[in-house]
């Protein structure tokens, strides 16, 4: 039965491609992604068959996002809704309810072991931040193996809302996963070029725990895991002491947060300013990180440049 259906979809897919070449292209299936990174992955897997819109666009911060009426319309017209999950999109549940969206919701971040949000990098003085103490850390896309799971889940989700495209999605997902494997090797090679004792970076918010676990770069952070908590004087003081004590070579600005505190930190600790890391959002198309793969490449390049002697 399954076999016959696959053959059928292949024939349909061929017919579709042939027809599309001859006539006007078939209307794309509208799907919504919660933020720019998941949107990029959905686009990679969905290709021409789908039209992806992201609620939280490039350069925007999902922690402080405010839904607009246009977002409610977008989401109510979508045939499928793709989110990161792991409590990253706290606005999503209410938005889906108020918008009356009927489309199925697919969580991309599933099929691997999530880290706890209050891991070894939190400083203990950010209790009560919005993610709670036992919540998982949602920033799982900073580990490429996790994103391979994301891609599998997205492919399954797309096949569910568009069974005719299932083979196309599976093929595209497989091709993309090959690119991800190459990216993974690239990152590991870059980390190898940084001496072990210099693999410490300082960032504004605790977004890189997965990168830390996967690739062995340690991160000291200024804020807790969410950008919506303001650091206290004591918190900033502790961070300065920690950065000095661990001799972190460089501090990094993130694309979604105010750079002034981290500049202050750099001046006060003598750690050099290491450029911008893209944590929770892609850059605009003309920026250095317009796609997920470019984002990871950009980040590891910045880290290597600043940390390697």
């Amino acid at each position, binding site marked *: 039965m399954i076999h016959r259906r696959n053959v059928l979809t292949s024939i349909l897919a061929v017919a579709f491609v042939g027809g599309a070449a001859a006539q006007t292209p078939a209307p794309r299936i509208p799907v919504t992604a919660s933020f720019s990174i998941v949107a990029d992955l959905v686009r990679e897997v969905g290709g021409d068959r789908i039209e992806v819109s992201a609620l939280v666009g490039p350069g925007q911060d999902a922690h402080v996002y405010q839904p607009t009426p246009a977002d409610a319309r977008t989401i109510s017209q979508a045939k499928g809704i793709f989110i990161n999950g792991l409590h990253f999109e706290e606005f999503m549940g209410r938005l889906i309810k108020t918008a009356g969206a009927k489309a199925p919701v697919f969580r991309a971040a599933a099929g691997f072991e999530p880290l706890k949000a209050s891991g070894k990098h939190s400083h203990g003085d950010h209790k009560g931040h919005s993610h709670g103490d036992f919540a998982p850390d949602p920033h799982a896309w900073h580990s490429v193996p996790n994103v391979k799971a994301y891609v599998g889940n997205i492919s399954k989700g797309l096949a569910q809302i568009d069974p005719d495209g299932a083979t196309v999605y599976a093929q595209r997902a497989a091709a993309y996963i090959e690119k991800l494997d190459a990216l993974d090797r690239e990152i590991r090679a870059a980390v190898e070029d940084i001496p072990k004792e210099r693999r410490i970076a300082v960032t504004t918010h605790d977004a890189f725990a997965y990168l830390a676990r996967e690739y062995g770069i340690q991160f000291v952070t200024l804020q807790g895991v969410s*950008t919506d908590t303001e650091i*206290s004087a004591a918190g900033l003081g502790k961070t300065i002491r920690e950065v000095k004590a661990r001799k972190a070579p460089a501090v990094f600005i993130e694309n979604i947060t*105010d750079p002034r505190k981290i500049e202050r930190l750099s001046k006060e600790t003598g750690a050099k300013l290491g450029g911008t890391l893209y944590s929770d959002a892609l850059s605009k198309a003309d920026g250095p990180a317009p796609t997920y793969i470019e984002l990871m490449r950009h980040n590891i390049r910045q880290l290597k440049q600043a940390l390697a002697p």
Partner: protein
Amino acid sequence: MEGIASLLAPFAEFGFMRRALAGCVALSVSAPLIGVFLMLRRMSLVGDAIQHAILPGAALGYLVAGLSLGAMTLGGLVAGLAVALLAGLITRTTNLREDTAIATFYILSLALGVTLLTARGTNVDVLRVLFGSVLALDDATLLLMTGVSSITVLALALFLRPMVLEFADSGFLRSVSAAGGAMHFLFLGLAVLNMVAAFHALGTLLSIGIMILPAATARLWTNDLTRLMASSVAIALASCSVGLVASYHLELASGPAIILVAGCVYMASILAGRAGGLLPRLIPRRHLEG
């Protein structure tokens, strides 16, 4: 002695604490003086409206030039002055009273400011704009704050007499000289300058606090203008220092901590203030017995 040393240790250890203190001292020397005059002219609420108007101005500056101190300051100055003048104009030309005119500006400014800030997927932190970032004062901001403070003190020293005269009886000075109107605008200009300086450290919502709270507190203790000015500055200086130290040791947000300390002094003065406090008024004075 050791206790005091450990209380002050963060200032010795961290540059950002010294910068926060320096910025606060600069603010405390001039902003409460403006507050005293705002209070005497019954313009405290106007001050609040002007303070809010700085937000959309600064946001516009941000949209045009990014996180640039110059553009945000200039935008704030222009918008603050515009509202200071417009609020007066509306009161004089329509049937709305001043308090209504002020309330409308105040809320429109806040809405416009936040809309502008969030308009184009920005990475500036709205919280930081509303509540300031006294812990992240860079060189340029500190220079701006100390500069504004110096200009204010200098201008007040030069023009204190005509200004007091204008404020005490605006009809009189205007009848004998053209300086009356000029004094009014000079004062408004100084007020907006101070508010923009305070905006960088304490944000839109809190910065008026460092002007009005010390002035109101001082008013509860004395009727004399010179003492009023001196004690409001002293109260502001004390509130800033205690607030910063408390925010460090108790792990509180620094801006609100400073204003809360000023608020505690104010509350205590409402009870105990010799010139207008509750208790001295309730307790019968000796000369009434005789």
